[in-house]
């Protein structure tokens, strides 16, 4: 029984440790945007069609003044977004960033 509990806790900790989105979220909350971006890029490998991840990436690139990368991220967000609200948000960012380039 003790072994089972130990294995469960270890598995849970291992899983959290190896989830890039969790790390990205933590880094973002701490204001470490570049660090967060690194983990978001890792997260994309696991979820290449998740529009939420591209949205987060777009916001992070904008926060650190990387408009070209932000534009690319928002275009991908638009491509994979499933809700009209997110499509609107992506379109507004694409329009704004395109004018600035």
């Amino acid at each position: 029984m003790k072994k089972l509990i130990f294995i469960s806790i270890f598995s849970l900790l291992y899983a959290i440790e190896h989830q890039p989105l969790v790390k990205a979220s933590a880094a973002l909350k701490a204001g470490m945007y570049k660090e967060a971006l690194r983990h978001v890029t890792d997260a994309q490998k696991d979820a290449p069609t998740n529009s939420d991840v591209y949205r987060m990436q777009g916001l992070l690139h904008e926060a650190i003044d990387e408009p070209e990368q932000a534009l690319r991220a928002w275009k991908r967000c638009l491509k994979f977004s499933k809700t009209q609200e997110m499509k609107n948000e992506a379109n507004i960012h694409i329009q704004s960033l395109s004018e600035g380039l």
Partner: protein
Amino acid sequence: MNKSYLIFVFFLTFSCWSGQAINTTYNFNNIQSLEIESIEDHSNLPSSGEMVRSILTHNFLKYGFDVIETDIDAPLIDIGSGEQNLKLSCIITELTDSDVIVIPYRYEDRGYTKTTLNQTSETEKGKEDSESSATSSTETHSGGITQGSRIEYTQSRVGVILKIHDKNSGSLVWSNSFWYSGLELQKTIDICLKNGVLQIRKLFS
């Protein structure tokens, strides 16, 4: 056929984005100045009106206008040598720096394969014969998918309605609404208002 389709899509996209309302009979080439009226605070943030107005004048200056602030409560944007004067009013419709974004995610454990190779050899001194043996075992873990977790982060959202009136007649000559999202409130306000200023600049060019 393809070209016509692309032109149609372009205009459709542009018309959807550009939600401005404009008095097409008004002569925007005969303008002297644009006065920015005081802006009421949003209920979420005291002094937000003054902050938005400061960022607005900053953007007018940044994008090539002369800004005159002899009266701090009514900054003037110098437009040209015309005769008409305009008033710009701004209503903050949305101002939040704690809009919670939730990303549901799934953790994919891709499993692993562990191969153990045991190799032993025995060589006796003085003898050429030697014995060796090797065994290998493979253990495959299939992995699994855990779903149902989520992460959260907060973002800022800013929304404004900008309106331009003719100062003498009081008629509304232009209006539009803008909103933007970002990670930092001040930067989000800045970009939101930048989009407004760039559109207003097109009226006078």
